[in-house]
């Protein structure tokens, strides 16, 4: 697993946004509102948040895996060769 320099809470917020999940974003705010998730003691909210964070991390990982699978091989050569004539 990768080590992140940013706080887990910020991390989770960013992932949530990328999922476009307005609803879970609110839940997360409620759950993580009273602190404790920056390395200190973990309340119920903090644990929930950490669990949610794990799930989201997995989901992001699986998205990037899928992107990786479909991404054009030899990207360097491909983008170099993609030359268009100017249009309108």
């Amino acid at each position, binding site marked *: 697993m990768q080590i992140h320099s940013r706080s887990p809470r910020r991390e989770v917020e960013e992932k949530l*946004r990328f999922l*476009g999940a307005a609803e879970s974003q609110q839940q997360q705010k409620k759950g993580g509102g009273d602190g404790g998730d920056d390395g200190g003691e973990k309340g119920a909210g903090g644990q929930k948040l950490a669990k949610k964070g794990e799930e989201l991390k997995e989901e992001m*990982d699986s998205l*990037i895996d899928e992107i990786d699978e479909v991404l054009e091989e030899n*990207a360097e050569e491909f*983008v170099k060769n993609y*030359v268009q004539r*100017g*249009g*309108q």
Partner: protein
Amino acid sequence: MAIPKVMGTEIEYGITVKNDRDFDPISSCVLLVNSYREESTAKILWDYDQENPLADARGFQVEGEKYTPNQQENIARNKTLANGARYYVDHAHPEYSCPEVTNARDLVIHEKAGERIVEQSRREANRVLPPGTQMLIYKNNSDRKGNSYGSHENYLMDRRTSFKQIVEHLMPFFVTRQIYSGAGKVGSENRAHPCEYQLSQRADFFETEVALDTMVKRPIINTRDEPHADREKYRRLHVIVGDANMSEFTIWLRNGLTALVLAMIEDGAVDRDLSFRDPVRAIKEISHDATCRREVEMQNGRRRTAIQVQQEYLDMARRYVATREVAPEFKDLILEWERVLGALERDPMELSGEIDWIIKRALIEAFMERKGVDWGSPQVQMLDLQYHDLRPDKGLYYVLERQGRVKRVVTDEEIERAVLHPPEDTRAYFRGGCLRRYGAQVFGVNWDSISFGIGDEPIKRVMMVEPLKGSKQHVEELFNSSPTAAELVRNLRS
């Protein structure tokens, strides 16, 4: 009172053939367009007699040669479809001009139908290409090497609104709308300042404020005055400043808010001076700032962010809809406009499932973090391009859409229907209906005319100078009482 904002888009696609050293864009485009099989419309001419791309909205005619291909070339390059669209080869790019629609939601449906039509013909074209090669199509605007191709919007406007008024009140809107309509681009080009990522595909290419050109010295406001309708009553505002968008929500906002602001201009409801000191510089400065916080110099010496300028338009729009009957869609658009500007102000990343440039940026950032690569990486440049790939299994936008990560505005069923059927509330219905019913007797088509070749009789051209006439309501009875083209022409005369 503003006239209904009949609208459409013309999308030029990027094209390449993988593993083909002798790739020729023009012959590939001709192959592509002719690979779309629609029985009824195989041999119909595009009627160039009706075209005048050199008329200038400022009131003069520009010297130059009008392009008129011979008959064989004409048929090879132009397809008019039964859904009312034109699918053709424009210079070295395939282009899809959607049929005329009356609202932004229908515009999304028909622009998206265009993506499917181009993809369907791409798959067909690939069957005849040598093994190991593959045609690929991108709905974007740049090869990131200084070559740009356009995606143009068209809006019907009242001729009585002077072009000068349009320019004055629209320029600040066009300079700033990219904060929610940009398709996003890694890096810069065309001698613009270097940057990691920018909002717009096209901003680097604008070199002047107002002009007729679309290919060199591109203007923010294009003056082409070719209404494709009654020129005494209408103008068609030909907008070349936009990006090719993938996100349905982004397309809806782009066209819907532009239509709203144009209606406001017609009704004299844009009454604040929001002029930039240097719009050409401003459009690039705004594009190059992914935080949306950069303040740009106004004519009056103050400095404003693009969000602040958009908020001024929003404020005028709220007053506008409060005091009059407007298209129902405008009220929904205003609510979303407010929400989007609020989110942009807090943190653009809140819109990472909605606005193209932000969706793409979030994807690239997640990829960079996981892979430990930076903005200069070829893989990141590939992501930028492949976001716009039309293959449903490989196009990164479609991957995100399939996973439910992007906000949708329309349904797949609506898009599929629009592949075959025209909108019902504009003259596109008549055009499409004629092609479907009398395709073999249709001789030529343009936006505002359709001509029939019946037996040995001289060609008969039916003019359609009113974009809102020829709708289902107007012509369904006529169609039903005209089993043949000859009867249609006879019934039209009586």
